[in-house]
């Protein structure tokens, strides 16, 4: 589904990603772990189509398309979803309207009819129930005045409504207490599907106790320095990121 080859990219003249190779197939759940500043968010946002990055080498293919030439809205309509590490506030625009506009934009691309207000509301209510979200968040402005946890849950709600093919979750676990974490994990697990791929970006392995990934990658200084099964995450937790970095001194020096 997603195939990243030797991707080098930076911003404002600073090299951040320095040769990423990654292969994600439908049905898989990948976790990308790594210390702060290793380039996790950069990779996630670049895949989602944020402007301003300079790609200096490499390529990204997504469902037989050259992803890097597509504008963000086309990527979204082709099924790529990013749960933001820092969800953005949009004053005066209701959460419900925002999500309805998004859903209908995507449906239109797929040749489906627009959902009317009633059907949409029903869909929204069902998904919110699963995430145990308060319906009072619907008429409120997008993310405005939401608590940290509410913002993160709102991202997962959007994912559940938009039903992407490739979901990238950027530190959706950070700032959640254990109960909220379980709810979010249930929500994500409920989305696991043979047709869908999920990429979890996380700093801690805690989330991976609840969402067990097929593959774990460790990102360090813009490179994937190690990949393995779910138990790699646990090992990392015990030994710390220093452990993988020590194993790649040559790369570190580069």
């Amino acid at each position, binding site marked *: 589904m997603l195939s990243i080859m030797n991707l080098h990219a930076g911003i404002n003249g600073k090299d951040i990603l320095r040769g990423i190779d990654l292969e994600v197939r439908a049905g898989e759940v990948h976790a990308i772990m790594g210390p702060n500043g290793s380039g996790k968010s950069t990779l996630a946002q670049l895949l989602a189509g944020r402007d301003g990055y300079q790609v200096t080498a490499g390529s990204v293919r997504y469902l037989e398309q050259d992803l890097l030439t597509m504008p963000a*809205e086309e990527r979204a309509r082709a099924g790529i*979803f990013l749960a*933001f590490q820092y969800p953005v506030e949009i004053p*005066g*625009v209701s959460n419900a309207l*925002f999500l309805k*506009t998004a859903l209908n934009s*995507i449906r239109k691309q797929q040749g489906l009819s627009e959902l009317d207000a009633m059907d949409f509301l029903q869909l929204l209510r069902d998904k919110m129930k699963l995430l145990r979200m308060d319906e009072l968040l*619907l*008429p409120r402005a997008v993310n405005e005045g939401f608590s940290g946890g509410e913002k993160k849950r709102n991202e997962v709600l959007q994912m559940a409504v938009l039903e992407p093919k490739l979901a990238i979750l950027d530190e959706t676990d950070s700032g959640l207490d254990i109960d909220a974490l379980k709810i979010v994990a249930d929500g994500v697990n409920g989305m696991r599907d043979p047709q869908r791929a999920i990429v979890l970006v996380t700093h801690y392995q805690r989330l991976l106790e609840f969402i067990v990934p097929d593959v774990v990658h460790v990102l360090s200084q813009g490179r994937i320095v190690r990949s393995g099964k779910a138990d790699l995450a646990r090992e990392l937790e015990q030994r710390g990121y220093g452990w993988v970095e020590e194993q790649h001194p040559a790369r570190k020096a580069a």
Partner: protein
Amino acid sequence: MSTATRQLDELIGREYRHGFVTTLETDTVPRGLNEEVIRMISARKHEPHFMLEWRLKAFRHWFTMREPQWANIHHPPIDYQNISYYSAPRSGKDGPRSLSDLDPELLRTYEKLGIPLKEQEVLAGVAVDAVFDSVSVATTFKEKLAELGIIFCPFSEAVQKHPELVQQYLGSVVPYTDNFFATLNSAVFSDGSFCYIPPGVRCPMELSTYFRINERNTGQFERTLIIADKGAYVSYLEGCTAPMRDENQLHAAVVELVALEDAQIKYATVQNWYPGDKEGKGGIYNFVTKRGECRGANSHISWTRVETGSAITWKYPSVVLLGDNSVGEFYSVALTNHHQQADTGTKMTHVGRNTRSTVLSKGISAGYGQNTYRGLIKVLPGAENARNYTQCDSLLLGEQCGAHTMPYIEVRNPTAQVEHEASTSRIGEDQLFYCTQRGIAPEEAVSMIVSGFCKAVFQNLPMEFAVEAQKLLGVSLEGSTG
């Protein structure tokens, strides 16, 4: 410039949609301004003597005045002798008696503008008066309103049929000596709308006037006078468009509102005059004096307006709060794009006790647009317990535009409470990316963000107008789920 900023610039660089010219035979007086022209205007309109006298007094006074220079706007000097002060579509008789007398070309013009003049097609609950260049060409639903004793007609007709009301109220809120542009208007005004709601009557429909400047080199000087007698209620809407022309055209209107005891007037404007092209060529100079007087106790006047047009806007709808417990409100969205300049705001004068005023101003600047909010809150010594709350928010789209806030506060009563809040924000790439990442097209995203920014003002518009206002800003209506 980043891609996001470029997109923003493209999005807001849209062409003006109402910029066509209608070919009609017109009766236009020669350019220039002198007593002869004023006598001619008054004679064409068969005005009673008191009107001519009033015009002449205004004209003589105007000659002693100079154009105001204090506003934050810049334009080449206006040659007042190079403007024609009266232009009317020529029809066989003195004026159209009913819609069927109208030139079909004119009806088509209004259709193109989306303003239906045929009564059966008029939006449910909206009576329309249409002013084309200088004269009022059609007033719909007149009979229905007359049954309630409501007078809603062209100003020139009111002068004929209700001279006592006109004489009593004309200039009672905005005297002919008020300011340069109001004085000019008093001398040369050609038509406009007149509205009187008798005591205790709640006007059952929205009253609406559409102004259109068509003729080249004409100025438009309309005059609107609305009186809500004791306990009356009226909601009034005003819309404006003009053709695209390279020259600047002058629009100097006066609107006077009078609310007696327990009366309420809601006045809404969606102003979409031609703003000039991308380089700042052409467009309407809009110098307007709008003032309401809450004369009676518990009276209430609110101004709501959405403005996207005009090359230059100079406009300060104000309320004088004379009656005890009276309420004045001002809700405003002003968008300046390309080289547009707006110096607008409001003036709330608290005279009576327990008077309250609210000001909510949303300025959007794009391109090279310059948007200035200028507001005066004045509390006189007798205004015990006066309250004002002012909030001014500015939204910037792009790097070259500007927003300026100039609040003036004069309080001469220690019991008064005056609050002012201001904010400036920029549509961020973060917001735009958040929307596009969800599949929303960039232009729709900008519309949505701008519309969200204006929401608190749109909520004060009647439904049909809110739709129009949002469309005007290129936005889609907030869904019923919101």
